[in-house]
């Protein structure tokens, strides 16, 4: 008996029990729908992160002090004191693929204006940091080389800080206190909003790095270098060059761990994506457990169905059904159940993602891969969980089956 015939038989048998078929499919529908929805939401999150990171410039290269590689006891980034302005200047001078670089010295401090106060990060840098980040002042101006050279007490506020300290008042020209030192506010930056990691990028005060180094932190080194390569394609080569230069300057012997880390924008993006992907996979695998449960549901119903239709099976065998055709019939019924469930689940998952997308303003990405995987998994569940009942049906003795009450 041909496949088309068997399929027709299976469909007819399922149609005879519409309610039951639907309920049996429900497990698969929910499983497939949940997998597709979670994966699409996860992919959406990944997309958001990627977008955010791309917006920071695809040719960015980050150099931080300390090693952030796992294993052994490490002090963590920024804990070692070996990264200096000389390193940065050397990089600018000797690595032609690096176009620009700005240092970063970070301290957390309490900031006071009159009776308002706020705790925020003070970031010390050079004037070219702002164009690298494409970040401009909304009012006032950012500081120049002169303020850096003189380690002037000038501050450029992020919009959040301005909001908390000044509450609508124009901060430019006012004097605030950072720790114990008075600083003159010379500008307020335009709002950048939340970073992809969820932190408020506007909750920051920028000052010349020299000021932060000497007057606030009391250190001589820098913690971080924000560099940018001449092009996105050059960033990987730039990283290698920066690394070999810094190894040489820091006298890192071959095989020894570096006391710095160099990453490209895409490394950071990959890291963020990998984290997000792990999350997505975790959610997806939780959701796929329901696929498994759905499969068990199918097996259960198919076993019931075989018992219930024992006489039908006996009759079919009496009128010429071979063991193979009986087995195929039940197998195809199971696969049809799971595939139909899978298809409905795909529709439900896509619809669910669309609903989440529009309700929560969260981008969801439905990948063809996840749909294919869900469909294949559903079919696999059908075959796997349908095989045993089908075999049981095929192995019935027609004489016994016909006599079955």
């Amino acid at each position: 008996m041909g496949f088309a015939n068997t399929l027709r038989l299976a469909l007819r048998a399922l149609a005879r029990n519409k309610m039951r078929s639907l309920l049996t499919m429900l497990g698969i529908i929910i499983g497939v729908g949940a997998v597709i929805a979670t994966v699409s939401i996860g992919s959406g999150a990944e997309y958001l992160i990627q977008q955010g990171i791309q917006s920071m410039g695809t040719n960015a290269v980050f150099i931080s002090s300390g090693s952030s590689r796992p294993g052994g006891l490490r002090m963590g980034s920024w804990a070692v004191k070996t990264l200096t302005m000389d390193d940065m200047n050397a990089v600018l001078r000797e690595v032609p693929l690096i176009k620009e670089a700005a240092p970063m010295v970070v301290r957390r401090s309490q900031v006071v204006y009159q009776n308002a106060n706020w705790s925020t990060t003070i970031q010390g840098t050079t004037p070219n940091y702002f164009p690298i980040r494409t970040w401009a002042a909304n009012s006032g101006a950012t500081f120049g080389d002169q303020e850096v050279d003189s380690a002037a007490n000038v501050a450029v506020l992020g919009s959040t800080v301005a909001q908390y300290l000044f509450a609508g008042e124009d901060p430019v020209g006012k004097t605030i206190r950072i720790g114990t030192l008075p600083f003159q506010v010379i500008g307020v930056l335009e709002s950048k909003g939340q970073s992809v990691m969820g932190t408020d990028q506007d909750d920051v005060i920028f000052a010349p790095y020299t000021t932060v180094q000497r007057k606030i932190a009391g250190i001589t080194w820098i913690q971080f270098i924000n560099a940018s390569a001449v092009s996105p394609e050059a960033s990987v080569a730039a990283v290698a060059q920066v690394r070999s230069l810094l190894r040489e300057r820091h006298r890192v012997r071959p095989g020894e761990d570096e006391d710095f880390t160099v990453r490209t924008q895409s490394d950071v993006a990959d890291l963020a994506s990998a984290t997000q992907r792990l999350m997505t996979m975790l959610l997806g695998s939780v959701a796929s457990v329901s696929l498994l449960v759905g499969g068990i549901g199918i097996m259960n119903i198919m076993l019931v169905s075989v018992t219930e239709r024992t006489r039908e099976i006996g009759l079919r065998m009496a009128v010429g059904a071979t063991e193979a055709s009986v087995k195929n019939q039940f197998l195809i019924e199971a696969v049809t159940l799971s595939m139909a469930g899978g298809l409905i689940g795909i529709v439900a998952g896509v619809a669910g993602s669309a609903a989440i997308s529009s309700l929560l303003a969260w981008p969801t990405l439905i990948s063809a891969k996840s749909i294919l995987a869900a469909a294949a998994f559903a079919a696999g569940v059908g075959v796997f969980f349908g095989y045993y009942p089908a075999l049981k049906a095929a192995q019935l003795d027609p004489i016994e089956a016909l006599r079955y009450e």
Partner: protein
Amino acid sequence: MTENPLNPLKAPVAAEAARADSRPVKTPGALAGAAPGPASSVDKAVIRLEGLHKTYHLGETEVFALRGVSLEIFAGEFVAVMGSSGSGKSTLMNILGCLDKPTRGHYFLEDVEVSGYSKAQLAGLRNRKIGFVFQQFNLLSRTSALENVELPTVYAGLPVEEREKRARESLALVGLADRAEHHPSQLSGGQQQRVAIARALVNRPSIVLADEPTGNLDSRTSVEIMDIFQKLNTDHGITVVLVTHEQDIAQYAKRIMEFRDGRMRRDVAVTGRLFASEVLPTLPTLEEENKEDNVQASPNLGNRS
């Protein structure tokens, strides 16, 4: 019904032979040589058993269900197999129907030895050569009469149009052409059994095996079913083997085989054969039976409504 121009079945046996049916049939051994009329086609043994044994093992004990059965059934015959339970008649029917294999001995179906066939080969034989009619009808519920009748053609691999054509012809043969779209639950017990007979005929089998086909029916409907069997046998030359424990039902056959303890004890031509077409007018009709319902509870397959 008998005038049905769509008759799909093998060319009716010569009318002369049909008329000869009313005569007492000789014992099988004699029949081969002495059959009357244009006999060569009639004389072909559809079924021949030689020293057939069937032994079951129930735990430690052996049950000898058949102990050396030899018989021949010829085309155009109408045989009633009788016997009490445990006589071996069910085992015999299972073997004749290729549902079971003999332990020992030979089974020739249309001169082909089938006792060594594989399960799949036997399934093919059941499909093409044998039509089953059961006591319980065994129709698929929630499935139209037409689709029920089509079932064997599906396994025969016939094209869809051919299936429906044959099923309709088969239904017409049992007088149910106008009930093709009805579901079993909408049919009376007698009609359901007629659907089952149509199903048995649809693949144009060599032989129809009916296992207590009237066991679930009231007496008038039983006679109606016997009428159909007699007409199929007489008018279309269909070979019928009928298992029954009712003597009056057996009287509609041409030949009776009686089984006891796994052996055939008696093999005789029916004397005083009954003809359903003559008996029916003498029976009270449905209305006369004071609305007694002839639709009996019939356990259909998977019927849970």
